[in-house]
């Protein structure tokens, strides 16, 4: 219940935050919403020596358009994602996904940056970001860079972030108008991580799949991109036989943990069911 001690810092700018993290060393952690980190600290599973609170850095919050992309500041809260009219119009799948993350109080504090950056396989946004072909803008002691979400996750809690680097924004190419989308999440109750979840974004043309991207949540120690399944579906009419083959291909890349949500074999099958349902819903939303 009680965390260990740490030094607390609340910088006013990204530069200050990065400088602080560099000087405080590898046991310092950035703090955004804190709803992954603080519970771990209370169980003493994480014991950072210092916390750098990003909450006072105004430039890290907000949703804006940059040409063909939407750029979301890393400390934008999940509630902020849901409330954004810009996102509701351009990226409705993001709002749908945000609504099934945790509960109202956690959504008020949890951030998009926190959800994508710590490499927790249970988080919902990473697979979605991969499905959307998003990029993470990162600032560190060596400067700024962009990392594709597809290249970001290396293992459970292992990411491409180097020491002292902080995710500052997420850049998402906006899908074409009329795209189909769905995030289908199976969970035991509100607030639970996914037993299995599937994100689907597709474009239909003439009744056929012109393009489709699939992300799978919490059925591996990283988010999974079901490229083989997507390839099978591309060009098809989403007929039953093709969907069956795609679902089999998606199931084949899963390696879920066995836990209270079910044994691995069940969770793999549920990934398949979620994909099936996400495809069906995405198809109804797409304009042909």
């Amino acid at each position: 219940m009680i965390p260990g001690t740490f030094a607390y810092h609340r910088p006013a700018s990204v530069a200050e935050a990065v400088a602080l993290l560099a000087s405080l060393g590898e046991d310092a952690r950035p703090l955004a919403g804190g709803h992954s980190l603080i519970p771990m600290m209370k169980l003493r599973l994480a014991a950072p020596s210092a916390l750098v609170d990003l909450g006072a850095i105004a430039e890290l919050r907000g949703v804006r358009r940059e040409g063909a992309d939407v750029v979301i500041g890393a400390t934008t809260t999940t509630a902020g994602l849901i409330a954004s009219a810009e996102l509701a119009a351009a990226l409705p799948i993001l709002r749908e996904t945000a609504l099934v993350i945790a509960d109202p109080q956690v959504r008020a504090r949890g951030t998009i940056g926190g959800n994508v950056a710590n490499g927790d396989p249970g988080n919902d946004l990473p697979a979605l970001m991969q499905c959307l072909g998003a990029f993470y803008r990162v600032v560190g002691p060596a400067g700024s860079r962009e990392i594709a979400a597809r290249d970001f996750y290396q293992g459970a809690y292992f990411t491409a972030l180097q020491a002292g680097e902080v995710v500052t924004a997420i850049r998402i190419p906006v899908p074409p108008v009329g795209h189909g989308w769905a995030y289908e999440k199976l969970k035991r109750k509100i607030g639970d991580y996914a037993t299995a979840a599937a994100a689907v974004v597709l474009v239909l043309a003439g009744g056929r799949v012109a393009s489709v991207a699939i992300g799978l949540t919490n059925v591996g120690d990283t988010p999974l991109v079901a490229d083989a399944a997507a390839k099978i579906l591309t060009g098809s009419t989403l007929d039953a036989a093709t969907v069956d083959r795609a679902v089999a291909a998606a199931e084949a890349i899963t390696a879920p943990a066995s836990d209270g949500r079910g044994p691995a074999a069940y969770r793999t099958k549920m990934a398949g069911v979620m994909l099936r349902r996400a495809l069906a819903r995405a198809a109804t939303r797409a304009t042909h």
Partner: protein
Amino acid sequence: MNEMTPPTAAERTEKLQGMGCRRKRVEDVRFTQGRGNYVDDLKLPGMLYGDFVRSSYAHARIKSIDTSKAKAVPGVVAVLTAADLAPLKLHWMPTLAGDVQMVLADGKVLFQNQEIAFVVANDRYVAADAAELVEVEYEELAPLVDAFRAMDADAPVLREDLAGKTTGAHGARKHHNHIFEWAVGDREATDLAFRNAEVSIKELISYQRVHPAPLETCQCVASFDKIKGELTLWGTFQAPHVVRTVAAILSGIPEHKIHVIAPDIGGGFGTKVGVYPGYVCSVVASIVTGKPVKWVEDRIENLSATSFARDYHMTTEIAATKAGKVTGLRVHVLADHGAFDACADPSKWPAGFFNIVTGSYDFPTAHCVVDGVYTNKAPGGVAYRCSFRVTEAAYCIERGMDILAQKLGMDPAELRLKNFIRREQFPYQSALGWEYDSGDYATAMRQALEKTGYAALRAEQRTQQDAFKRGETRELMGIGVAFFTEIVGAGPSKNCDILGIAMFDSCEIRIHPTGAAITRMGTKSQGQGHETTYAQIIATEIGIPADDIMVEEGNTDTAPYGLGTYGSRSTPVAGAAIATAARKIKAKAQMIAAYLLEVHHDDVEFDIDRFRVKGLPEKFKTMKEIAWAAYNAVPPGLEPGLEAVSYYDPPNMTYPFGAYICVMDIDADTGVAKTRKFYALDDCGTRINPLIIEGQVHGGLTEAFGIAMGQEITYDEIGNVKGASFMDYFLPTAVETPHWETDFTVTPSPHHPIGAKGVGESPNVGGVPAFSNAVNDAFAFLGNTHIQMPHDAWRVWTAAQKLGA
């Protein structure tokens, strides 16, 4: 209507807010304003905080405990281990079940998260830091986690302290991990019934280990005054007087110098009955340090170490005729008690009242054997609205009857109607030794079937099943029927005691000169609304408005001795004491009234809120006037004042019953079950406050839903406890929780002064079988006989796959 018009009888009754009214709760005024008074709200000058160091292993010898680093942390005042408690003989303590349990690990640990050391510091943050610095050296021992292997010849020895003891508190022990064998009924007649049975079923029906998880965990503040030699102990105690007596016996401090106070309690559900190591260590720490010591357990500690509920494996057999008349019931239970037998049962009942397992049915013969065993798990077992193992018994018989119905090709409701104890048979002597007080089961069942449109539901189900077989739908419909009879109100002194103290309960009422009153009982509400409902009983009995009656519980200095609140006993036992005490006051009031009215006491009669002269209703004295007169104008020969106390030894238990029907829609592709409808008809006899009864039913059904559909505390093969945090332990939110439809019939208890039976636990007792029967019923047409609980999605899906769904 104006001020001059006298109020009508209806208006006077309404003003009393007595029995039967949906009286708003008195407690709510403070709770809705954040002015509750819970244990952790207490702050005393100089107060210290205690925190436990707990075992990493399920079974291990303790080679050493190094507390030096912890003691060196600034702010740490003491670190207690078994070695510190041993000179006081407090390193072990007796349990309510006739066993002993370690307060702090003595040489070995027997379950993961067992208490090893108690750190005491001036700040709870410091205590937490210091607890991390206690170094324990373990030598791991082979753990025993599978109750079915507990009595194997090569099973590990758990209780070395019982070496060589071939008898325990409940008779002979068959094995070093065996606790007791409890047998009841007629073995020969039952075996004969099975030999002659035309049809019989046999099934292993398991009720998984769960935990009630009240929102407030267990906690206490112990404050020993060295100068006066007095101990004050505030705590989450459902039975504060029992705690006081136990504290006196354990500590040697005389009982009149121990003040136990249970303030507001944030839910109990049976977990707050027993005495836990945290309480004992806090008391010792207070004595040793001379300061008050507070202990507040966190949630993981609560779920993994502080009691548990159920863990019964029930091999169930029912014999019947081809026509569906039951002829015998035979049950063997393997009861997993964990490392110590700390079951909070009345002392002569090692398996509680499990012998209610004949349920609502007229079994001519039955036999039941319960074998309790030790395992490397937390101790406890009796909690979670179980009425002393009645939840287990009801699940056993209600699942059994459904399995029998399936084998006979009969509708489950029809089978029940065919075998119900009939109204004329009450009081009914069950084959396992209980005398059921009253019941009208057929009426309740028929009302339930009619109100839910049962016949139409079955027709819809048949259509759905055909569509499923044709591949047109992947949804299955399940209809769960449960008709429970439960046994509450422990209990008559002839067979019920807690550590030798009979299970009566008590009430004291004192009327003030201005007609208001104060009353105290030996029970202790943890949310049941006693401050509201008890006043309603008195209001109707004596004719003083409930709003003018102050109800107090929980302070052992002022409340008369009682055995506390659990097992739905408050209404049956304390409720009876309240009525009895009230009637003593009413009898004296009658004499005072007659004296004031200058007539013989037989010539006055009670009328709602007054006594009036028979035949001359305009000549009356109100209770307010009588109260005043009690303090200045009593009849000669009577003492002044108007008060009474009653200690009520119930002549029998009470037997509430109910008919529950659950409709579920199950997604065969995911195993997810959605409750479409849940109808609960309860008969708890006389209904004191329908608003509160409905609330109890909603709450108990929600617990039942959680249990049936996903709750479990499990252990892996080396004894690591799983699911012991709110991340995994299935507590439904408002989104998952179904809508509840409540209904009722009223069959008063003939032996209870106001005919009331109690209702708090019924919804958990009846709810779990209703949910489980619904899930099982959904797959019956595919050949399913029994799917074990909990019915979480992956298990339902796995069962569906096996059945070819």
